[in-house]
């Protein structure tokens, strides 16, 4: 469903510190699969996920989503596609301090302008499904690391995306919590969602539910396993 053709991405273009984070990537991500990217830090894993997830545009090359070329879309339209198609779980969780778990979960839905009550119901369902039912009103900074991770997952799911993207999801978790995370993700995969992960944690990349693992080095794909 997602195709990358000779994708390159530069930062600080035209300046002395110009640097190509990705340098000619060809990749196909299949629907309903779990794909993991591994590689040392600076290898371009995160940049690749931002391009796949419509967070950024490639400097050159093509990105196709369900056959549609989205690489030339302005941010406004890229965002429209992104917020319906992708849900993100970040390494630092990136929750907004001072807001309750419930408010954090509902944030991605605000710009869509849907019905408020339906949105609250959906947030409630997600809270319960992720064993956060009793923590909905708690401010996120009062939650434990595992709870914060689950809030971040719930937030990624609020708009019911087809694809869930997780960047280094287990970097801040101990092994028990990392396994719990993988279990949740497996459940999502069973629901038919496409999962994309980046990690250098063998616990993740070698887990049984991962269908494909791609290795990156210096902005290029080195192996396809």
């Amino acid at each position: 469903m997602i195709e990358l053709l000779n994708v390159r991405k530069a930062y600080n273009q035209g300046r002395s510190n110009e640097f190509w984070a990705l340098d000619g990537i060809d990749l196909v991500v299949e629907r309903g699969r779990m794909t993991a990217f591994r590689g040392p830090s600076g290898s371009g894993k995160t940049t690749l996920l931002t391009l796949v997830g419509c967070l950024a545009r490639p400097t050159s090359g093509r990105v196709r989503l369900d056959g549609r070329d989205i690489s030339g879309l302005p941010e406004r339209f890229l965002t429209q596609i992104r917020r319906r198609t992708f849900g993100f779980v970040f390494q630092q969780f990136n929750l907004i301090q001072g807001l309750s778990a419930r408010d954090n979960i509902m944030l991605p839905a605000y710009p869509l302008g849907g019905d408020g009550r339906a949105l609250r119901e959906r947030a409630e369902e997600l809270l319960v499904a992720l064993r956060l039912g009793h923590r909905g009103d708690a401010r996120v900074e009062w939650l434990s690391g595992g709870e914060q991770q689950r809030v971040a997952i719930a937030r990624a799911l609020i708009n019911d995306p087809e694809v869930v993207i997780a960047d280094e999801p287990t970097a801040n978790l101990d092994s028990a919590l990392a396994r719990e995370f993988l279990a949740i993700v497996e459940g999502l995969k069973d629901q038919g969602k496409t999962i994309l992960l980046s990690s250098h944690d063998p616990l993740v990349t070698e887990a049984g539910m991962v269908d494909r693992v791609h290795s990156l080095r210096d902005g290029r794909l080195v192996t396809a396993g």
Partner: protein
Amino acid sequence: MPAWLTRQQALIDFTLASLARRKLKNLGLLLVYTLIVFLLASVMLFGHALRREAAAVLKDSPEVIIQRMVAGRHDLIPPGYLDRLGHIRGVQSQQGRLWGYYYDPVVKANYTVMVPGPDAASPVATGRVVVGAAMARARGLAPGNLISLRAYSGRLFSFTVADVLDHDSELVSADLVLMTEADFRAFFEITAGHYTDIVLSVANPQEVRNVAAKISAALPDSRPILRDEVLRTYESVFNWREGIVLVLLAGALLAFAIFAWEKASGLSAEEKREIGILKAIGWETGDVLKMKFWEGALVSLTAFLLGYVAAYLHVFHFASALFEPVLKGWAVLYPRFELTPAVDGLQVATLFFFTVFPYTVATTVPIWRAAITDPDAAMRG
């Protein structure tokens, strides 16, 4: 509800929540903003109320006042002038007036001494006077008291205070002393037939200028003063003073705009991170702009309301304590008067342009700069 409406509602909800999370920073801004609105609104409300007051007073004054000029100076009207005016077409009635100034060494202040017209609201009897409120305060007078005044001729006169004028229009009546024509002539030694000036009423307002022209022709040494001209002069003098004060406040306004710019561009790392997160989880630049717009609108509206209400109270309930000395007259007998409350659409629109507009302009670029944070910053950071 349509989608765009629920979207705005959600954005406003979020904005309120994030304003509340940064109370201290926002309170500081709100305070300065409110102060600016308060200052400007006070100047405007005060000026506007003064203009209305003057207009209300002048509404009942005669259309034309005629003064006689001798050597370029205001002089008494000699006998015979009144009759000669009666023949001018369009003049409904004419009447000689007697008034003058009296310096009272006791309180070191000037009074305006007047003979009330025949249809005046407060007629006086011989030997009695009606005095203005400020004068009554200065000399501690109440109805029934006796007041002695030494005339310019050196003779001492005693009057009984019949009444004290009420506060309604103290701006013009503060230092007033009303007495009968006979008392006035005796006090100032003005012989019968002479008057200070003449007032005319003209039936048709369109005719006033023609009448004035005819008077100038008939009595070449006279100077007709038209009510409209006085009104116009008041209007432009008050406007001018208000304008000057506003220009003096321009510095404050500029400082405020810079302050707003500073506040908006000096986003804390925390706020920057938040905007990055919002963009990463699906907010668009336009959504962030809208949220920030609502934030600005809420702050502006609050500051505007608070500042305006405070100014209203200041001007109409606390007698503009802060800048009475600048905008009012300079007499020793200081009028203490309550202005009639008046709110005016033009004024509110003007005030809006002086406060909300600069604030919005000053914050636009910083807000935009925050809103274009890269959506992938949250992941790379």
